C-alpha cells in the first residue's frame, strides 16, 4: 500500500467505530468451536444423569452398557473418585460454608440432571446408546425446592456439612438504620421474587481432552471464558501441575457468565481420557445444559425504604434469600447472586442509612452460576419496582422521585463503602427524558386511556458494578485478587503481538484491544494481532467476565505498550538526533514533532531494536517486549434504560414499543461494540422480565427442560433499541475506561416491569415477581379497582 501523505492521518483508533477484524471467519463458517475440534482416535462421551431431584443411589449396573459393541468404557462415581478429587467451593470469608461436589454422584443425587455415570464410545450416538443401558436403583428422598423453606430448619438436608441448607448468613447495617426506619414519615416495603433464569448461550458447554501418555501432559479444549484460571483451578483435581496442562478455549459461542466457572465435566473428561488412553470429546446437549449446567438469579427479596413526606429516601433495608440450587458454583459460590444484590442496594441514591441480610439456601435444583448482571439484576428489580410503587402512593412523578434522591456526578462513597468514581447519574436520566419526550408521552398516555389503550413508560437508572479488579470484587463481597496481565511484543518487522489472559468470546477483543495497543505504539491497527484463549501462548490472566476486559486487560496493555513505546522513542531519538520527547509515533511512523520530513517507519525502528548493533541506544535490551499486570481500582458505569409498552388488557400481551438506553462507561474503546453490548444485554433483560424461567414442580422435577419451555426472545419480541452515550471517564483507571456490558441486563427488567405498572396504573397494580406473563397481567387487571373500558 502506498504511503499516505502525512496530512491525511488515520483517526485515533480508541473511540472509533472500527469494524471487527474477527468477523470474517465466522461469516465464512470458518469459526472453530469446541465441537469442531477433531483428534485422531478420539472417543466420545455421554453422561447418565439423574431423573430424580433427591435420591440415594443404591446400585449402579453398568454391565449391559459395557457389553455394547462400540462402548469403550463406563465409569461410575466411585471409580471417578479414585481418579480425581471432588470440587470444594469456598469463598475466602469465614461466614461462608464450603460445599463439596463429587465429580460424579456417589451415594446420592441432589437435583435432576446430576451426572451419575459416564459412557465412552466410538461415537456420540453409541455413547448415548450405552447410557440407555445403565441401570440404577434409587431410593427416593423428599425434596425441597423453596429457598425459604430450605433454611427454615424443617426441610430435608442436602449436605451433611451444611446445617440448615444455608451456605451463608451475612448481615450489614449502619448504626442508625433502625432508628431511621422508626422515625420515618413513611415506610414502604415489598417482597419480590426474581424468577430462576439461565444464561443459556447458544453454544452449550463442551470439553475435549488429550492426555499424551508419552509426555504425561494434558491438552484440553473447553468452551470456557477463563482458560488460565480454569487450568489453575482444575490442576489439583487432576493430580497434575499447571505446567503439564495446556488449556485452549477455541471459539466460544457465548458465555454470559455461565462459562466463567469450572464444572465437574472439565475434570471428568481429562481423567477419563487418561484412563482410556485416547482423546475424549464431550459436547453438552441442550437438555443437559438446561438441567445441569448453571441456573441463575432466583432470589426472594424483601426491600424496605424509609421516606419523608416530601419524598426523600432516608434509609434502605433489604433481606435477600438466594436459591443456590444443590451445589455452590465453583469458584464464585452460590453467593454470586444474593450478595451482589444486597451490596448494590444503594445504587445511585444518596442514602446514608443502610441495612441488609443475605442468606444463601441450597435446594434440590441445578446449582446457580453467574449470569450477566448476577444478583444486580434481581436486586435492581426489587428496589426499582418498589420506588415505582412509592411514587404512585406519594403521588410524585417516579422519574422526579428518582432524580430528587440521586447522587451528584462527583465520586461518592456509599454507606456500605463502595467507592463510585463519578458518573452522569442525574444527567443520564435527564437525557433519557428528553429522548423519549417524557412530557409528551404523558399527554399521549392520557389520550390513549381515553380510547381504552394502556400504554406505559418505565425508567430504570442503574449503576453497574463491573470490572472486577481486586477492589471491585471486594466491594461486592468477594475478597480475592483479580487482576490481569498482558504482553506486548513488537516483532522485528514492526508488527505487534499482544497476548492477554482475558478471552474474547463474542466481545470483539481482537479489535478493541488491538485499538488500544495500536494507539499506544503509533502503529496501524492491521499491524496488531491479539492472542488469547491458549495458556501456552498467552500470559496468565483471570479471564473475561464481569465486564472487566476493556478496563483490566486494556489497562495492562496500555502499561506494557508504554514500555515498548519508550524503547521505540529512544531508538527514534538517536536516529533522528532529537530528544525522545520530540518524537511522535503515529500511523506507523516516528516523526519529529513539527518536522514532518524527519521521519522513520516504525518497522525500521523495530529492526534496529532487534538487529541494529551500534544503532541501538547504548544499554537498551534487544527485545521490544514487555509484560505488565494491571489491577483496576473500583469503577462503576452508569446509565438508564427506558421502556415504553402497550398492554392489551384483554389478552395480557405486553408489546414493547420503544426501548431507549443511555450508557456511560467512561472512555469507549469502540462505540460499535459498546452499542452491541447494550443491545444484547437489554435483550437478555427483556427475556428475564417477560419470558425466560426455569420452573420446577414441588417434587423438584424440572418443567423447563427444553427450549419449547424456556423461551428465548426472538426478533419478534425484541424491538429496535436506541442507544445514546454520555462519557464520564474514570478518574482512577488507566485510560478512563469503566467496565460495561451488563447494565442493560441489570436495568431492563425493572424498566419493563415499571412500564407495565405505569400502563396499568388505573388498576393500581403491584408487580412482585418476574417473569411477568400474560396470565399475570390478566390477574392484575382482574384484581384492580378500575372499570375495564371497552375498546371503541
Amino acid at each position: 500500500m502506498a504511503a499516505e501523505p502525512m496530512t491525511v492521518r488515520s483517526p485515533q483508533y480508541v473511540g472509533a467505530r472500527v469494524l471487527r477484524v474477527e468477523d470474517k471467519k465466522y461469516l465464512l463458517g470458518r469459526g472453530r468451536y469446541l465441537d469442531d475440534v477433531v483428534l485422531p482416535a478420539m472417543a466420545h462421551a455421554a453422561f447418565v444423569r439423574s431423573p430424580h431431584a433427591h435420591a440415594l443411589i443404591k446400585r449402579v449396573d453398568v454391565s449391559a452398557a459395557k457389553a455394547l459393541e462400540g462402548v469403550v468404557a463406563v465409569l461410575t462415581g466411585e471409580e471417578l473418585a479414585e481418579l480425581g478429587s471432588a470440587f470444594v467451593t469456598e469463598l475466602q470469608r469465614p461466614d461462608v460454608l464450603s460445599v463439596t461436589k463429587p465429580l460424579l454422584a456417589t451415594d446420592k443425587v441432589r437435583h435432576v440432571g446430576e451426572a451419575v455415570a459416564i459412557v465412552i464410545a466410538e461415537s456420540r450416538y453409541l455413547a448415548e446408546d450405552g447410557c440407555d443401558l445403565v441401570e440404577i436403583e434409587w431410593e427416593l428422598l423428599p425434596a425441597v425446592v423453596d429457598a425459604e423453606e430450605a433454611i427454615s430448619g424443617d426441610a430435608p438436608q442436602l449436605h451433611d456439612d451444611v446445617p440448615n441448607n444455608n451456605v451463608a448468613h451475612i448481615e450489614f447495617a449502619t448504626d442508625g438504620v433502625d432508628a431511621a426506619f422508626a422515625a420515618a414519615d413513611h415506610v414502604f416495603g415489598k417482597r419480590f421474587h426474581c424468577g430462576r433464569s439461565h444464561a443459556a448461550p447458544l453454544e452449550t458447554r463442551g470439553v475435549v481432552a488429550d492426555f499424551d501418555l508419552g509426555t504425561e501432559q494434558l491438552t484440553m479444549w473447553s468452551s470456557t471464558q477463563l482458560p488460565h484460571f480454569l487450568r489453575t483451578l482444575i490442576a489439583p483435581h487432576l493430580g497434575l501441575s499447571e505446567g503439564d496442562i495446556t488449556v485452549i478455549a477455541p471459539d466460544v459461542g457465548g458465555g454470559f457468565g455461565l462459562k466463567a466457572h469450572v464444572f465437574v465435566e472439565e475434570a471428568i473428561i481429562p481423567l477419563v481420557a487418561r484412563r482410556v488412553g485416547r482423546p475424549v470429546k464431550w459436547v453438552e446437549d441442550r437438555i443437559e445444559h438446561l438441567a445441569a449446567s448453571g441456573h441463575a438469579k432466583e432470589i426472594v427479596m424483601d426491600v424496605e425504604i424509609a421516606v419523608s413526606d416530601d419524598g426523600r429516601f432516608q434509609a434502605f433495608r433489604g433481606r435477600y434469600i438466594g436459591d443456590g440450587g444443590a451445589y455452590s458454583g465453583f469458584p464464585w459460590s452460590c453467593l454470586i447472586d444474593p450478595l451482589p444484590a444486597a451490596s448494590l442496594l444503594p445504587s445511585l441514591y444518596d442514602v446514608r442509612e443502610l441495612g441488609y441480610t443475605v442468606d444463601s439456601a441450597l435446594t434440590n435444583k441445578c446449582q446457580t452460576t453467574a449470569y450477566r448482571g448476577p444478583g444486580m439484576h434481581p436486586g435492581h428489580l426489587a428496589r426499582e419496582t418498589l420506588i415505582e410503587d412509592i411514587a404512585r402512593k406519594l403521588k410524585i412523578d417516579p422519574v422526579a422521585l428518582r432524580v430528587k434522591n440521586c447522587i451528584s456526578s462527583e465520586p461518592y462513597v456509599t454507606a456500605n463503602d463502595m467507592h463510585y468514581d463519578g458518573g452522569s447519574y442525574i444527567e443520564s436520566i435527564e437525557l433519557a427524558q428528553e429522548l423519549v419526550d417524557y412530557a409528551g408521552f404523558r399527554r399521549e398516555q392520557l389520550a390513549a386511556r381515553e380510547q381504552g389503550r394502556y400504554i406505559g413508560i418505565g425508567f430504570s437508572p442503574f449503576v453497574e458494578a463491573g470490572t472486577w479488579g481486586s477492589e471491585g470484587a471486594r466491594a461486592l463481597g468477594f475478597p480475592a485478587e483479580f487482576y490481569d496481565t498482558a504482553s506486548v511484543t513488537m516483532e522485528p518487522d514492526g508488527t505487534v503481538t499482544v497476548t492477554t489472559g482475558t478471552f474474547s468470546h463474542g466481545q470483539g477483543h481482537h479489535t478493541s484491544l488491538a485499538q488500544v495497543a495500536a494507539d499506544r505504539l503509533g502503529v496501524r491497527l492491521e499491524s496488531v494481532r491479539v492472542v488469547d484463549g491458549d495458556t501456552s501462548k498467552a500470559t496468565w490472566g483471570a479471564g473475561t467476565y464481569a465486564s472487566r476486559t476493556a478496563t483490566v486487560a486494556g489497562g495492562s496493555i496500555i502499561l506494557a505498550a508504554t514500555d515498548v513505546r519508550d524503547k521505540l522513542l529512544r531508538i527514534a531519538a538517536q536516529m533522528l538526533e532529537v530528544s525522545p520527547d520530540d518524537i511522535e509515533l503515529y500511523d506507523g511512523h516516528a516523526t519529529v514533532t513539527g518536522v514532518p520530513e524527519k521521519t522513520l517507519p516504525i518497522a525500521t525502528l523495530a529492526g534496529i531494536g532487534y538487529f541494529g548493533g551500534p544503532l541501538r541506544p547504548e544499554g537498551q535490551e534487544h527485545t521490544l517486549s514487555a509484560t505488565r499486570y494491571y489491577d483496576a481500582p473500583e469503577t462503576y458505569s452508569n446509565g438508564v434504560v427506558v421502556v415504553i409498552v402497550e398492554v392489551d388488557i384483554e389478552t395480557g400481551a405486553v408489546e414493547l414499543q420503544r426501548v431507549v438506553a443511555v450508557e456511560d462507561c467512561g472512555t469507549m474503546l469502540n462505540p460499535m461494540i459498546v452499542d452491541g453490548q447494550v443491545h444484547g444485554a437489554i435483550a437478555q433483560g427483556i427475556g428475564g422480565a417477560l419470558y425466560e424461567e426455569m420452573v420446577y414442580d414441588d417434587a423438584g422435577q424440572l418443567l423447563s427442560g427444553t427450549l419449547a419451555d424456556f423461551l428465548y426472545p426472538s426478533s419478534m419480541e425484541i424491538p429496535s433499541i436506541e442507544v445514546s452515550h454520555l462519557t464520564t471517564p474514570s478518574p482512577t483507571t488507566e485510560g478512563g475506561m469503566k467496565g460495561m456490558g451488563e447494565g442493560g441486563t441489570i436495568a431492563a427488567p425493572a424498566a419493563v416491569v415499571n412500564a407495565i405498572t405505569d400502563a396499568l396504573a388505573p388498576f393500581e397494580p403491584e408487580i412482585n415477581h418476574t417473569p411477568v406473563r400474560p396470565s399475570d397481567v390478566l390477574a392484575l387487571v382482574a384484581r384492580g379497582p378500575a372499570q375495564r373500558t371497552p375498546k371503541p
Partner: protein
Amino acid sequence: MKRDDNHDGAIVDGEIEVRLQVNGASRRGRAEPRMLLADFLRQELVLTGTHLGCEHGVCGACTVLVDGAPVRSCLMLAVQAQGADVTTVEGLANGELHPLQQAFNEKHGLQCGFCTPGMLLSAAVLLEENPAPSSEEIREHLSGNICRCTGYVGIVEAVQAAAQAGGGAEASVATTPAAAS
C-alpha cells in the same frame, strides 16, 4: 422437492451411502439411518460451519438450504437428503463475501458467531423471496433463528443494508450452484 432416485444407497453394515449436491459439488458419505443431516454435514463432509444449538428444532443455528428451502438440519436425517441440493454457509461466499456477509460485518450483526451461519442462510432466502423487505418482514422471517448476543438490532440492520446493496437480486444462493471451487 426433486430427488434423484438413482442415488438410493444400499445398506452396508447398517450404514447407507448418501449422495447429494452440497454447495454445487457432488458429495457422498456414509450414514446410519438415524444420523442427523447436521451431523452428516459436520462429521462426514467436515462442513463445520453448520452449528447445533439445541437439536430439537427451536434455535435455528443448524439452518441449511435443502433444494432452496431453509431446513433445520437437526430435524432431518441424512438419508432424507439423498439426492438433494444442499447449501451451507460455506457455499455463500463466491470468491468474495456475499452482500449479507459484508453487511453483517458492517452493521455488527454478529458477536460470538454461533448463530450466524443459520441466520445468514435464513436471511438469504428472505432476500430471494423479497428483495426489499421492511424491518417488520425481516423480524418475522428471522424469528426462527435465535441470537443470544446481539438483541437482533445489528442483524436486522444488516439484512436491510444487504437488501439495499442488491443482496437479493444479484447474489442468489438457493438456486445457483455457487462456490463449488
